[in-house]
């Protein structure tokens, strides 16, 4: 399977439109205010595809994941899973839906209950979905299958999480997510807590599973080299909005949004040859999500910002083939295949993006 070959015939598993979510936070003495963690998110995931989600810490990646998992109630917007709105589900239908979407949590230490054994953790979903595997024999069989699938031994089922290494714990988390045969797995920074020497094992495992089972992934990470390696398409988030989407290659090699460019440029490179000659180092901190900047949210840290950025929220800018950039709302083709960004002054070349290596 290759990066550029997006199979357009495969149906969408998940479609998210205009999703918003805000939290009420008490801001010291001044009472409580709304924090817009998600502000009009649009995205879609195809069957068997991996969508990468990158962005600064606190930009809302986890909130998006949690909202998709119905751990948070969105303020507005729609979520369609195979065309249906999961938030409307109740009772049996809800349970059935829960079975199809699963999540692997960021922290392999916190997401496993230290007082349970690996076996108990992995078969925990069966206790709720009793009809899935009837009888303890069937469950044990399935448990062993799962352990095998993620590369653990049957005897590991009796160990507690603290007896496992980080990579093995993450495998337990993955096995638990697989227990119900989901169609979509949301992976919230699945490897960020892992050692480099183990990270590759988990990434390989995920890859294998996708090829075998055809599941879709939403892969959240801030490690760009990992994202580049595992995803088909990437969405870049900044302060609760997706500011750029496109195929992995497009986004990484030909970023449109200055923020994406800065992100790509700032990530350290192991190979001196890959190191950009001129590196963009952003100044300033991520603005408070409590009062995001007007107009373009990135303008406070953007080196290309002009007056218009403060007053007008940019439209989506699409990059069509051959590197030309067209402004305005895309007119042709389904949007999720496009490479687009929200910017008044998109970056025009790799050199401007600070991506041209020294050598």
């Amino acid at each position, binding site marked *: 399977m290759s990066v550029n070959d997006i199979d357009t015939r495969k149906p969408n598993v998940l479609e998210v439109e205009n999703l918003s979510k805000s939290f009420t936070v008490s801001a010291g003495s001044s009472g409580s205010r709304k924090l817009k963690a998600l502000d009009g998110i649009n995205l879609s995931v195809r069957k068997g595809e991996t969508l990468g989600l990158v962005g600064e810490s606190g930009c809302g990646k986890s909130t998006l994941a949690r909202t998709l998992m119905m751990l948070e109630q969105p303020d507005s917007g729609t979520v369609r899973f195979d065309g249906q709105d999961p938030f409307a589900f109740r009772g049996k239908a809800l349970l059935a839906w829960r079975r199809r979407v699963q999540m692997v*949590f960021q922290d392999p230490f916190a997401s496993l209950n230290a007082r349970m054994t690996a076996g108990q953790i992995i078969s925990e979903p069966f206790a709720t979905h009793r009809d899935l595997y009837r009888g303890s024999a069937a469950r044990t069989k399935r448990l062993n299958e799962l352990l095998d699938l993620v590369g653990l031994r049957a005897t590991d089922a009796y160990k507690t999480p603290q007896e496992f290494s980080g990579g093995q714990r993450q495998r337990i988390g993955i096995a638990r997510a697989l227990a119900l045969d989901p169609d979509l797995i949301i992976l919230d920074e699945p490897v960020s807590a892992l050692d480099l020497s183990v990270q590759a094992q988990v990434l*390989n495992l995920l890859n294998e599973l996708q090829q075998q089972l055809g599941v879709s992934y939403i892969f959240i990470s801030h490690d760009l080299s990992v994202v580049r390696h595992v995803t088909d398409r990437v969405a870049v988030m900044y302060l609760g909005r997706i500011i750029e989407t496109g195929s992995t290659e497009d986004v990484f090699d030909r970023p449109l949004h200055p923020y994406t460019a800065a992100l790509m440029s700032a990530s350290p490179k192991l190979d001196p040859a890959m190191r950009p000659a001129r590196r963009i180092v952003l100044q300033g901190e991520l603005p408070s999500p409590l009062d995001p900047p007007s107009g373009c949210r990135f303008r406070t840290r953007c080196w290309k910002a002009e007056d218009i950025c403060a007053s007008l929220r940019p439209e989506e800018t699409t990059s069509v083939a051959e590197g030309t950039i067209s402004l305005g709302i895309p007119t042709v083709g389904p949007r999720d295949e496009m490479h687009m960004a929200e910017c008044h002054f998109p970056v025009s070349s790799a050199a401007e993006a600070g991506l041209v290596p020294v050598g």
Partner: protein
Amino acid sequence: MTQTLTAPRRDQRTGPARKPNLGGPSMFRMLLRDKFATAGAVILAFVVLVAFFGPALMGELATKQNLMFMNKAPFNPANGWAYILGSDSLGRSVLARLVVATRTTLMVAVPAVMVALVVGSLWGVWAGYHRGRRESLSMRIADIIMSFPSLLLAVVVLYVFSPSVANIVLILAVTRIPIYMRTARAESAELQSRTFVDAARTFGTRPNSIIAMHVIPVVTPTLLTLATLEFCYVMLAESSLSFLGIGIQPPDVSWGLMVAQGRQYLQTAWWLSILPGLAIVITAIAANMLAAWLRIATDPAQRWRLTLDKPARKALKPASPKPAAKEAK
């Protein structure tokens, strides 16, 4: 298929499948590490044994009055073993009464603590898990109980209904519920935001199952520690009730009642109140020692204190089993 997966090559520890071991050495070994806690455990075990078998052994001795043999001093072998701890103002054996009182005392303290523990904890856990309005309401109820003069409650209930053991237990339990409730709520509110609870939610697990599976096992050690401490409090509270004349009623006898009744003889027959007082203090200290240990033993961040192989001073000397590093040098 699966062969292509990169399986972990080998596990660090191999061995047959074994039952889960919650990490580290067993509780029993950790108990032995702490001499004070061991002593506490032995004392408590002794108290419990006395409560179980003592009254049967003592038979009539505890109630047999002898008005001509009043207030005899203790530790006088001439009076016979039954009076080794002296006799009381009605000529009864203090030893026998202490033994019989052990049972009553525990029969008040243990159920009172248990009831408060179970009710308060479950309620608190429930409130903390759901947060929001349920939590606020529960905490207000706890506030009410706390700011209600507990003595008033005791007096009213014990007057309206008789001061029977059951009523005393009820009162002591009700007034102590908020203590557990607050603790359980705080822990549970923190736990419900943990990732493994979120994970359980994503399977569609119902709140009550999550509470039972993920919250209660975690809060139990804290609450048990608390309960051990509360045990002392309840014994003291019972003696205060006796002081006010609404505690355990004669001919029943509890340590608290013995202290309260013996107080007027403090100067003429000190043993009447000092001995049961000592029984309370020793039991309380024993329970506290055990609680202190339990608190450490169940706290993963502190547990190492109980499990170290050598005291700190010796560690600076050449360390014990030397890893191969030095040899290779």
